[in-house]
């Protein structure tokens, strides 16, 4: 690794770490500044006496000073402990683990589809600039970009609800079945939620890719490549796309935060038992430890993805290494 690259990597990683630390603190502050403090919410316990509430408050460590709580919180986090859900008294991490496992394939499928479709159509519409194909692709991208995610999901239910499953991850009461049957079933359930994510992202990605490609098409090295006799396909992929990938990678890294938000809405619409739905439930139930844990997880994953995007950028762009 050249010293420039090392420089860059160390800086990016350090920044990611600092960001995560700030996120941790922000997270703590945000949740300790809530009105209707966590203690009052223990009034969920019917007929609770003040003594009991106090006991519970002690159990959740809410009685000590904020600073001690903060240290305890960091200590707990350091040991991988995100606290205990108010609602089901289970460690937040245990609750979230399955949720994350459910969310990842659905979101990943949608994102991958969106990336592939977005890059293709962005590339094609930039290359076919000012032709009917461009107008079609660009306008549909703008439309998909502008539809509210949850609304788009609902529309898909309207359109495809009778052909494809619209709720949950599996056919509820199908017991047994081979692994492949189950996988096929899960994939079927995944189609609509993933499609919703894919479509919203598709719009955004197409527009981003289109403008990145347009900008690249104006670069002199494209003219050079054309002068060299490079054919269309190679020119578009090796020269144009390869360079346009630089802004695209950065923007896609940034769009991870957007994906997380979209996943939340999509999971609510399709009752996909993932982390988004968990956040939704936690909001409804004021399950602050869950909300806090999920929020932390989401934020850190966004930071990590941005970091990965940055590192990928460094790999793609030799100029980074100075």
């Amino acid at each position, binding site marked *: 690794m050249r010293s420039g690259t090392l420089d860059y990597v160390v800086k990016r990683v350090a920044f990611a770490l600092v960001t995560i630390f700030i996120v941790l603190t922000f997270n703590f502050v945000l949740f300790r500044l809530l009105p209707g403090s966590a203690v009052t919410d223990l009034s969920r316990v019917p007929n609770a006496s003040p003594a009991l509430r106090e006991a519970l408050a002690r159990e959740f460590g809410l009685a000590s000073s904020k600073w001690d709580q903060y240290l305890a919180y960091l200590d707990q986090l350091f040991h991988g402990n995100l606290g205990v859900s108010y609602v089901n008294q289970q460690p937040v991490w245990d609750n979230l683990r399955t949720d994350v496992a459910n969310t990842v394939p659905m979101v990943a499928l949608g994102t991958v589809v969106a990336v592939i479709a977005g890059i293709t159509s962005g590339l094609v519409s930039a290359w076919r600039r000012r032709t009917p194909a461009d107008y079609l692709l660009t306008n549909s991208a703008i439309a998909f970009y502008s539809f509210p995610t949850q609304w788009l999901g609902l529309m898909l239910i309207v359109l495809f609800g009778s052909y494809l499953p619209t709720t949950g991850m599996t056919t509820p009461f199908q017991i047994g079945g081979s692994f492949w049957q189950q996988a096929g079933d899960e994939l079927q359930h995944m189609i609509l939620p993933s499609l919703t994510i894919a479509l919203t992202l598709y719009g955004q990605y197409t527009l981003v890719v289109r403008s990145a490609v347009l900008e690249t098409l104006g670069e*002199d090295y494209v*003219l050079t490549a054309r002068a060299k*006799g490079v054919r269309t396909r190679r020119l578009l992929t090796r020269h144009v796309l390869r360079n346009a990938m630089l802004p695209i990678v950065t923007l896609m890294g940034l769009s991870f935060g957007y994906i997380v938000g979209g996943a939340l809405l999509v999971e609510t619409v399709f009752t996909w038992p993932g982390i988004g739905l968990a956040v939704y439930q936690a909001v409804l139930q004021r399950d602050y430890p869950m909300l806090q844990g999920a929020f932390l997880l989401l934020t850190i994953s966004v930071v990590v993805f941005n970091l990965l995007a940055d590192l990928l950028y460094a790999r793609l762009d*030799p100029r980074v290494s100075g």
Partner: protein
Amino acid sequence: MALLEVRDLHVWFALPSGRELHAVKGVGLDVERGELFGLIGESGCGKTTTVLALMGLLPSSASVAGSVRVDGADVLSGGEKGARAHRWTETAMVFQGSMNAFSPVKTIGWQIAEPMEIHGVASRRAARARAGELLELVGIPAAAARRYPHQFSGGMRQRAAIAMALSCEPKLLLADEPTTALDVMVQAQILELLQRLARELHLTVVLVTHDLPLVAHICDRAAVMYGGEIAEVAAVDALYHESRHPYTRMLFAATPELLGGKDVTSIPGSPPRLDQPIVGCAFRPRCDSAVVRCATDHPALAEVARGHEAACHLNDPATGVLSVPDAGQPAGGAG
């Protein structure tokens, strides 16, 4: 038969407003094998457009008419696809902003080897080896092939661009202001290189520049362009000493000399707008010796001496006046 034969070349650009910009207006050129040919003119007069048209490299908004023959083969009539077959194997090009002529994410070696691979001139392996040799040829160590463009200085990039242009052993090399962005000393290095290569490889070179002295010393013949047209074509010596077009003459007069000590006078006004039709001679508004006829008649390029053509009514005996002051021996010379 000349290596490059251009006949009545026109290029129009469709503007967003719906209008058309007539950037090249009936240019005709003959460049002989092994010749170093210069194309001079002010900014915006259509030099780049002309050389791009020679390779069919125009943007989609352009439409072209006329014929371009390289080594007898028609480049333009087959459209982009037809033109592509001639690119780099017959005609190669060195661009002005060599800084940007290389993709920043690929190594120099890769980019030099690419045309050899895609034209089937050499296998991938051979192409890489050849890329190193080419770099050596232009005075860069072969090992530098593994480096990226941003790790090269401007001069090195320009040399690499030349190496890249030579990769498929083209017959014709088009160099569009190859030294404009460079420092004087580096410019001298590059010019020396071009001259050497032309000599050693029997290359035919078309050198586009707005720098008169440069053409004077590198090229054998040169064409002066004005407003999308050729104003004058001649051997460089004739251009300077027996110029038959006021524009050429005024252009020389506007160029300071290191030790000449002549008066330097600028050409008043600015070049014509090419998106509007021009009646008469395009240079008339700025010309110091325009006559009445210039306002109405468009002067055609005509032979005024052996191997010397000019598009000026003053050369026409019918105009009656033929007193072209010689820029080479300025009347009010150095004080």
